[in-house]
């Protein structure tokens, strides 16, 4: 695929930084009060079975049980990220006019964070935080796996007994109507009604290699996503429905709505802000992928840090949905989820998803953050899945890459770029 030239970007000015910081502080200031224990954790402190109580409530139940059983790690200084200047400016410029529609849809949204001012007394605060999460900064486009050593996502499926299988893939996201840096901006003409498009290409093992999916999310809350799958073994593009969002993306433990922690249609769910909560996270992974023991999903030598989060409870409007309750913890600094917890219909704890992060650079040299390794564990069947998914942002891909022509010309093992 031919790249288009990127225009160089100017650096931050002092006033820009000040403005960004002000907005950031306002965002924090208006945050609801924290709930739960806030442990006094100091950098350098080791957490393990001897003092697991210190992190109770700051990690998922499964991780806590592992700590009780002997898993140890150190606490480190928190990594600080600053919001992107252009994102902050767009938020300032457009957020005043954004409203919620009768079905919970966004009205008058252009670009940026829809609801930067969080009022704890607002009855729709949960929904607003959900929209903020959906429209968090994710670049104008990105290649998941683009910033890993191999330039692709490595996915490991781990059985209860420790047996592992690997798969490699890449996925490309385009946000055609919320562009901050790349022209045309903020929207690519013709794409006004598309929230994002994802192109995913499997590259290993060989029989899956070349399998390519194109997924399109529309802004219309009533319109289901479009999903096309190119299957190399028949060399044809297959249409698939996306309404069975609960089906396991076997052999992994993810389902369609677990992608990027929570990928459901915002209007299909109800939201409740449980409050602010200090959680343990890793916003700057030491190693990519993190070191781990064969057969185990937990990192061996990564340090964890305390982050401020919103705990958001997500409950489905459709009673047949697989997760009657899901709680995500949104890092107030980056807007990303650091821990998602899911319960099944019996109310029993089911899955735990941990997102690690890592600093990456934009093409203009600025530091931003990206998801690093993500793990999900099914505590009921003992299986887990790890993906190393570090993103390369703002690659300047042409929108034509997200079309069926790309699927039609895929070969096994071929890279799109």
């Amino acid at each position, binding site marked *: 695929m031919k790249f288009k030239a990127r225009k160089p970007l100017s650096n931050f000015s002092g006033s820009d930084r000040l403005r960004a910081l002000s907005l950031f502080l306002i965002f924090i200031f208006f945050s609801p009060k924290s709930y739960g224990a806030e442990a006094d954790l100091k950098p350098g402190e080791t957490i393990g079975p001897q003092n697991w109580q210190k992190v109770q409530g700051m990690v998922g139940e499964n991780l806590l049980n592992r700590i009780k059983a002997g898993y140890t790690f150190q606490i480190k200084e928190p990594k600080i990220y600053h919001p992107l200047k252009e994102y902050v400016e767009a938020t300032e410029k457009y957020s005043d006019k954004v409203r919620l529609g009768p079905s919970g849809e966004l009205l008058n949204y252009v670009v940026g964070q829809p609801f930067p001012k969080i009022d704890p007394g607002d009855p729709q605060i949960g929904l607003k935080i959900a929209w903020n999460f959906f429209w968090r900064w994710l670049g104008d486009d990105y290649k998941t796996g683009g910033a890993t050593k191999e330039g692709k996502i490595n996915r490991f499926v781990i059985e209860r007994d420790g047996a592992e*299988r690997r798969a490699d893939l890449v996925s490309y996201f385009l946000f055609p109507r919320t562009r901050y840096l790349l022209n045309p901006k903020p929207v690519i003409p013709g794409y006004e009604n598309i929230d994002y498009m994802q192109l995913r290409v499997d590259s290993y093992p060989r029989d899956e290699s070349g399998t390519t999916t194109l997924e399109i999310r529309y802004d219309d809350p009533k319109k289901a996503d479009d999903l096309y799958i190119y299957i190399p073994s*028949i060399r*044809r593009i297959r249409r*698939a429905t996306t309404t*069975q969002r609960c089906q396991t993306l076997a052999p992994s433990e993810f389902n369609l709505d677990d992608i990027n922690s929570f990928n459901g249609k915002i209007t299909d769910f109800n939201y409740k802000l449980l409050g602010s909560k200090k959680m343990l996270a890793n916003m700057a992974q030491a190693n990519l992928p993190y070191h781990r023991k064969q057969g185990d999903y937990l990192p061996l030598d990564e340090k964890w840090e305390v982050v401020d989060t919103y705990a958001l409870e997500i409950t489905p409007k459709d009673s047949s949905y697989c997760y009657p309750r899901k709680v995500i913890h949104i890092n107030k600094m980056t807007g990303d989820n650091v821990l998602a917890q899911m319960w099944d219909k019996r109310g029993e704890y089911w899955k735990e998803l941990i997102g690690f992060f890592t600093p990456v650079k934009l093409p203009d040299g600025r530091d931003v953050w990206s998801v690093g390794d993500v793990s999900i564990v099914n505590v009921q069947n003992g299986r887990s899945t790890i993906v190393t998914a570090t993103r390369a942002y703002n690659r300047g891909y*042409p929108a034509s890459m997200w079309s069926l022509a790309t699927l039609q010309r895929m070969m096994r093992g071929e890279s799109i770029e």
Partner: protein
Amino acid sequence: MKQSRSRSLFLLGSLLSLLVATTAQAYSIFGDEWEKFFKEHVTFGGFIENATGLAVGPSGDRLHFNTSNRFDMNRFTIQPEFNIKFTEEAKLFSSWRFVKEPRYNAEAKSRRRSVSPASNAKPLDNTFYDEDSPKPWELVLNLNPADQLSIRLGRQFISWGETDGLRLLDVINPQDNTFAPPGAPNLFNLDETRIPSWGLRVLYTVQPVSNSILEFFALPGFDEAKQRVDEVLGSNDTGDLKVRYGRWSAHPETRMPFGRMFTNGLAGRSTIIPSTRRQLPSAGDDWKIGTRITHNIGSFNFGLGYIWGFNPQGADMVFKLVSTSPGSPGTTIANMRLINDRTNIFAGHFNYALGDVLGIPLNTAIRGEAAFYPDEPYNISSFPGNSFRAGPHPKYPTGITEKHTLRYAIGFDKSTFIPFLQDDPWRAFRLSFQIFQRVIFDHEDGIRPFSTAEKINKVTTNLTFRISTGYFGDTILPDIFLGYDPDGYWVANPAITYVPPWSEKIKFSLVGAMYGGHNKFKSFGFFDEKDSMFLKMRYQF
């Protein structure tokens, strides 16, 4: 010839060994620049596979595999594949397919027994199923001179359409019908039985957001020297006039009296001896050209296209009576040519995802395709002819009539949960139902397949159903494909695959291919008495 083949095998073996070894070490023999190029621009993959088949079923089913050795397949395949990324605009994909399949005496013996006179019957060459050509299986240069323009040059596959398991619009590449049991996509999928063709394919995306794409292809020639698709009857291009039969060709006894369907004997010569020869297209007649536009209207995706050129599909062949002449005393020789006509195909296909309809969650993807063949040639005979047997049709002295024909298929795909059948209640079952129909306009009585006396009705229907899922983290993968012809024929193709939880590279599949019907002269019934079970072992690299 043998020396040449041995040399080719040796060279290929050496090349393969070199290439496998080079992935780890041997780049350096090319120097640092080349090593860097290989590391950054070349990827390597492929698979090694063994498929072993065993004839099964009641005694009747063993008619053709009736010795102590009932193996009917032992196919060993190596397929290395390379990707070379020269630049962002130019990439090369190449693969080779090497197949070795020792054949078993059981098949050869049974063929000889079932052909009369036996002297005319000859087993296939021991190397018949082998593929050891140094010619790349695929060799495609992908060029992207602009974001919206893609050009593909080389030996390639082009597949149009929406169907699964059975083909309809998928007629651009010829198919190899010799090694794979028909109607059994769980053993060899559609792609494994296509034969690649040299040619050019161009895709131009007019408007990406609506998937408006113009496509053009041109395939000049029909380069497969071994005409496997016509491996059905007669001299088979071997020139020795010995009858050969492949594993999945129709029953020999269905064809023996077929000369009578084309001609009456000369006076005093009642026995008709067919003398058949494959007639290949002459230079310039073997091109195939096609164009198509695809587009989205909302979520409705469709394509309209046109294909012109030589149609190499085995199922579309016809016999043409050229002449008759006196043979040995009491016999008449019917000289016939087995031909594929040049064809026009007007093509269309669509897909659409249905969510809720009137509040009912259908959650079903609908897909369809259609092919209209103007003046498609069919063999035709008079029923009954002389001696109450099918004989030549008085209106059609060559034995061929041409009829407009419409073939279409509609499919429905749905993912659904059947919790009581799942270890993971959220691992969905994939269900697929398809209906295929062929309608012959201005139909006449007596239209029949080229090789048998079974009539083809005005409307021919096939139904398929497929269900698949996964258990234990997709380490156990059952997949069942069923086909049914309302005329009374069926195929069942169940499979179960095991993927060990400790390796993504290995697969073991147990696959059945069972056929039945009220006779063995039509549809899936052609393959009655050839029920088999297969074990496939595949290692991916």
